[in-house]
């Protein structure tokens, strides 16, 4: 999830907690918007209604528990994607079965798969090899028709961003030639520091 996404999430959590706190205080002082609250937090009216649901009560709780667990899982998975984008799926190209076209004797049917992580590694390694770039982190999102590129470049202190841009554009052009993917949007964040990047 992006930083903005996390900020929105925690703003909502903060609002909910504040609202719950205010509601609790109002309920305590019997000022809950004119509603007469039952004597106990878990009222007998509610318990009667719940028992009336039998045998659906536990089933509803199981379903609600699974929904909450799924939300937690989604949140964890979203936190693993810092760019906030879905990673690109592997590229698959299907060639038709040659038996379908007897005139074309040289045709070979089958499926070609290009792994998305191989494309990411290829661009990352190409960028990291370029003069004036110390390291790169690449994420490709979107789809094969609308690929979106997010890159972080590690640059030395004497880097000239305008020169780096030219080098970067050349690397992306090579990537497009090789993979056939033409990024529709590109985000490049430059990190300039004295320290050498970690060797993988």
């Amino acid at each position: 999830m992006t930083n903005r996404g996390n900020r929105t999430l925690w703003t909502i959590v903060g609002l909910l907690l504040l609202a719950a706190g205010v509601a609790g205080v109002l309920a305590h002082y019997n000022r809950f918007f004119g509603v007469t609250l039952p004597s106990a937090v878990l009222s007998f009216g509610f318990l009667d209604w719940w028992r009336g649901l039998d045998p659906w009560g536990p089933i509803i709780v199981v379903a609600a528990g699974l929904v909450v667990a799924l939300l937690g899982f989604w949140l964890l998975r979203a936190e693993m994607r810092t760019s906030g984008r879905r990673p690109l799926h592997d590229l698959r190209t299907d060639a038709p079965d040659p038996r379908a076209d007897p005139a074309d004797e040289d045709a070979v049917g089958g499926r070609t798969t290009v792994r998305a992580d191989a494309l990411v590694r290829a661009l990352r390694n190409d960028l990291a090899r370029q003069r004036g770039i110390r390291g790169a982190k690449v994420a490709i999102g979107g789809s094969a028709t609308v690929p979106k590129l997010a890159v972080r470049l590690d640059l030395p202190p004497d880097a000239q961003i305008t020169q780096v841009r030219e080098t970067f554009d050349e690397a992306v052009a090579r990537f497009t030639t090789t993979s056939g993917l033409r990024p529709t949007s590109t985000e490049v964040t430059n990190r300039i520091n004295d320290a050498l990047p970690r060797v993988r």
Partner: protein
Amino acid sequence: MPIVNRLASVLLGLALLAAGLLAAVEAVLVGLDRKALWIPRDDWYARLTTTGWRDNSVVFVAVVAGAIGLLILLFQLRPWPPERVAVGGVDGWYVQRRSAEHRLAAAASSVPGVHEARARVRGRTGKWRAAVKAAGDRDARPAVEQAVRAELERMAAPETVRVGVSLARIRRVT
């Protein structure tokens, strides 16, 4: 700050996952009329059916929840410095804010007679400004400004970036 949010989100995700699964398992046990695994059902039932809204524990829990909510809201809604700042002349190119600050401080420190330079980049990603503070003679101010401008040019910063330089005289121990 973003890292605090990210860590908190991971913890929230883990808590939701664990609580959801636990609730589902406990509900299955209730349905099968089996003993609870982890939740003390009888204790909770007894406590919640005997605790009234007028009870002090209710207001205590409400105040704590509200205070935590208010703190989270204040933390989230106050202005944060941008994570990265835009490069001029092209869309989608940025420099990490911390890098920009380090480089501007290093540029200021490279001027002879200027020490302990610190730089702050503030504003929005697309429209940002830089402030450099250092110890040194005030006569060095044009040289510091020039060095900072040269560094901004190296970063291809937009021409609209405002730069503030303040130099404090070095205290001498006599």
